[in-house]
């Protein structure tokens, strides 16, 4: 799509019709979007790291994983560590959806990381957009709780009531994550 060729902030270009088009593409799961690494470096061996031989990865990151040169073929710069998911993004602990209980031993990889994409390849088709550009409806002064209820809900605005409940960590880190709600 043309919008992916924008070299600058798309603010001037983004109107309702374009946004609708983007969302429709995302909903349809248009192939070819998402994991850019896959286009140049298909995953092999299920390790999610791009390649099983030195220099065959498509990543531009320095290769730091593993204990020595022979183990740095997967192209990842992160590792699972001791199984905790501290300091790692969502989706399996280090950018992939692999179960952390399954260390990758296949294809010479020593880590289960995948640098730029999730294993599902389910990244929205917004490749040309800057990171962290967020669009939100303008809040309206309506749907107010009574003050006592507002205090109990953690927000004055009923439209902002999004309760979260503690649950098992989706990263399988073994910790209890989440909170009791509240926002604004």
């Amino acid at each position: 799509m043309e919008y992916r060729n924008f070299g600058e902030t798309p603010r001037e270009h983004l109107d309702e019709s374009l946004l609708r088009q983007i969302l429709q593409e995302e909903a349809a799961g248009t192939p070819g979007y998402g994991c850019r690494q896959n286009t140049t470096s298909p995953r092999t061996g299920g390790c999610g790291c791009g390649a099983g031989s030195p220099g065959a990865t498509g990543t531009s990151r320095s290769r730091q994983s593993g204990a020595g040169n022979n183990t740095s073929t997967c192209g990842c710069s992160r590792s699972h560590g001791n199984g905790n998911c501290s300091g790692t993004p969502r989706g399996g602990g280090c950018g992939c959806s692999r179960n952390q209980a399954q260390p990758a031993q296949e294809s010479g990889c020593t880590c289960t990381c995948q640098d730029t994409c999730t294993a599902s390849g389910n990244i929205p088709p917004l490749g040309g957009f800057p990171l962290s550009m967020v669009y939100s409806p303008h809040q309206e002064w309506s749907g107010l709780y009574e003050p006592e209820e507002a205090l109990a809900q953690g927000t004055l605005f009923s439209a902002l009531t999004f309760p979260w409940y503690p649950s098992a960590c989706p990263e399988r880190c073994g910790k209890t994550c989440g909170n009791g709600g509240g926002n604004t």
Partner: protein
Amino acid sequence: MMQDQKKLYKQIQTYSFVLYETALYLDTHPTCRPALAYYEKYRCRLREALEAYESQYGPMTIFTNQNTQCWDWVTEPWPWEIEC
């Protein structure tokens, strides 16, 4: 804590909360008249509740210690000593 004191304390909590919420809204909607009217309404209620509480139970902040004979701030119960 006496029942009346609890009730006033809860009112102060409640009015403070909705005022914070409204203030956050007004940060992005500074000319929203209904929000401004709502803010003014609960600003007055908070002031009244604070005056009623402090006249009977002591200062809520160090800026409202009115006793010139005793530093009530340190002799009143701390927040963690107040049962809600």
